[in-house]
């Protein structure tokens, strides 16, 4: 019983919950493999990590903005634009393509953060404007057409398996998570970010410098989304202004599964990584099982909804109320609780 209680309490801690769900997912994958429903090997891991390379950096950027109690809606716009810039510039100088995309993401993200601080505006409206603007720029740059990336040497280089399950692309994604984990967990900057997200006013009073951190976080988020978009474009040898993959919903899902909250201060890069991996394991497993995209939607949506409901601050109160109603109906009028009985008696005496 006690262990169930401890289990229930640690489910409240998002990062732990993410790792528990991830463990269950991997177990499920293993069971499916042992039952012979799907074949499991290094290729399965490779496929999961390729998915992770697309989604992970985008989710990490969003997770960092949520850690400081902001929200970056522009991630999917920057993801598409990053791919387009990389392919356009990379046609001549492949290495420069990725650098250009990341630099643009960095500058545009910093501009968004700067505008928020300078004009005291919320991040949702500013990044919504950013999203539509980035999408417009990507459409103008490409003439609303899909682009081909023809440098086959780069394409095979970026997709080539390393150690069987990694690739250059997924290695880069793992590296950015490692760096983020180090910064958030072991530096003063990380502490400051968590403080800002937990209570902006208290943190500022305590001497945390707000502006550089917020600008830096949005610059990082822009750069990470652009990086993911650029790497995906090199990997699939194409780019499209609307992005080659719908990243917005799964990125939000991954971050929330990883324990972040719109209330700020919660969620760590490790949790975000686990949250994204849950979705990647799910996607790979369901694809291997030959499940339709509709069922995948149901499962992703269902998980998100379950997390949203279980995180609802008023959930406990509603359950308590339901129990109270059931008690009253079940017990009938004769079984008033002692306090109510004494109140009834007093009223009668009066």
């Amino acid at each position, binding site marked *: 019983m006690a262990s169930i209680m401890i289990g229930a309490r640690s489910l409240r801690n998002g990062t732990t919950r993410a790792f528990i769900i991830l463990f269950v997912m991997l177990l499920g994958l293993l069971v499916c493999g042992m039952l012979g429903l799907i074949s499991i090997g290094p290729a399965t891991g490779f496929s999961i990590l390729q998915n992770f390379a697309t989604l992970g950096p985008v989710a990490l950027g969003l997770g960092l903005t949520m850690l400081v109690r902001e929200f970056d809606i522009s991630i999917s716009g920057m993801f598409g634009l990053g791919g387009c810039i990389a392919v356009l510039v990379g046609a001549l100088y492949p290495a420069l393509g990725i650098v250009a995309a990341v630099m643009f993401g960095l500058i545009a993200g910093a501009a968004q953060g700067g505008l928020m601080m*300078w004009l005291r505006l919320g991040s949702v409206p500013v990044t919504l*404007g950013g999203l539509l603007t980035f*999408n*417009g720029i990507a459409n*103008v740059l490409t003439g609303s057409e899909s682009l081909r990336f023809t440098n086959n040497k780069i394409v095979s280089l970026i997709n080539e398996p390393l150690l069987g399950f990694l690739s250059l692309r997924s290695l880069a994604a793992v590296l950015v998570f490692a760096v983020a984990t180090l910064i958030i967990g072991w530096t003063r900057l990380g502490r400051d970010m968590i403080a800002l997200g937990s209570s902006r006013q208290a943190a500022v009073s305590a001497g945390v410098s707000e502006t550089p951190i917020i600008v830096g976080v949005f610059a990082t988020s822009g750069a990470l989304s652009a990086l993911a978009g650029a790497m995906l474009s090199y990997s699939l040898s194409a780019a499209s202004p609307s992005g080659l993959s719908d990243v917005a919903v799964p990125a939000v899902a991954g971050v929330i599964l990883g324990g972040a909250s719109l209330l700020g201060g919660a969620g760590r890069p490790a949790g975000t990584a686990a949250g994204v991996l849950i979705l990647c394991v799910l996607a790979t497993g369901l694809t291997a099982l030959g499940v339709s995209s509709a069922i995948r939607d149901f499962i992703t949506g*269902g998980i*998100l909804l379950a997390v*949203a409901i279980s995180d*609802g601050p008023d959930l406990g109160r509603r359950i308590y109320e339901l129990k109270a109603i059931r008690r009253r109906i079940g017990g009938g009028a004769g079984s008033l609780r002692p306090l109510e009985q004494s109140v009834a008696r007093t009223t009668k005496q009066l």
Partner: protein
Amino acid sequence: MTQSVNRATVSRHLTDWLANRLPAPSYVRITTVALLVALIATTPGIFTPRSLITLLNSAALVGCVAIGMTFITVSGNILSFALGATVGLCAITCAALSGFGAVASVLGALAVGILFNLLQGALVGFLKANSLIVTIAAATLAGGLAEVATGGQAVYADPGSLDALKAPILSIPMAGVVLLLAALLAHVALKHTLFGQQVIMLGSNARAAAAAGIRTGAVTMAAYALAGGFASLTGVLAASRYGAGLFEYGTGYDYSAIAGVLVGGTSIVGGEGSIWATLLGVFVIAILSTVLLLRGFSTQMQLLATGALVLAAVLSQGRWHRS
């Protein structure tokens, strides 16, 4: 002498009256509108019936969703990512029910739209579940449901069954009439009913609203249900225009609706806003697109201009406004 005093009083009253009615310091907004008027005046061909009807039609589809979105934004829940999905679901329902006549189609679509959003509102209102996550989850589930129900194919309406829904009234396109009626209804609901006042109070300070005895859960749920009702009108209009229902008809409406709300000047943090402002925002965007189209700019440039306009509208609400 008295006359000049009177004139001064009158003019002061007039300035006060105007100052009370115009949105707070809005040099940026006035400049925007002036620029827009200048653009319209110098663009040939915008006053032809054909461009006006195109303009009205495109504004009407976004407009109904934006009216619904206004309730969600004003109630303090930022935005819903599920109104586009509502449009898609309702277009499918409308087309699927067309065999039972236009009335049944409309009622069926309304019921689906209201119920779908009412359930989300219940989770947001009673459990205080995160509104962005709930609506993203709902949109994903709706996509799966539509895929299962239709197999990803368009559902074709019985030929001619939905014609009554696109016939012009007094040579005004049906979509425009629907938009106007919806806007009137929404305006009355928001500004002249107890419910509307409760939505505004909830958005400006949820804790104070609860302390004042407002049933916050029920009000949130009703605001979502109403938003769903307005969004389903767009679903019906789309289904009758194309004679079919497809989930993808709803794609992009979330963003264009919230763009209209923001360009209109409604604050994203909730507690204030008006239906007419939202409508103004939607029309400003639609007019800008039409002007750019008539002046020979590409669709890409229109997208970029809309993005820049939304960004400018957001930035104009910043601190320089208040100081």
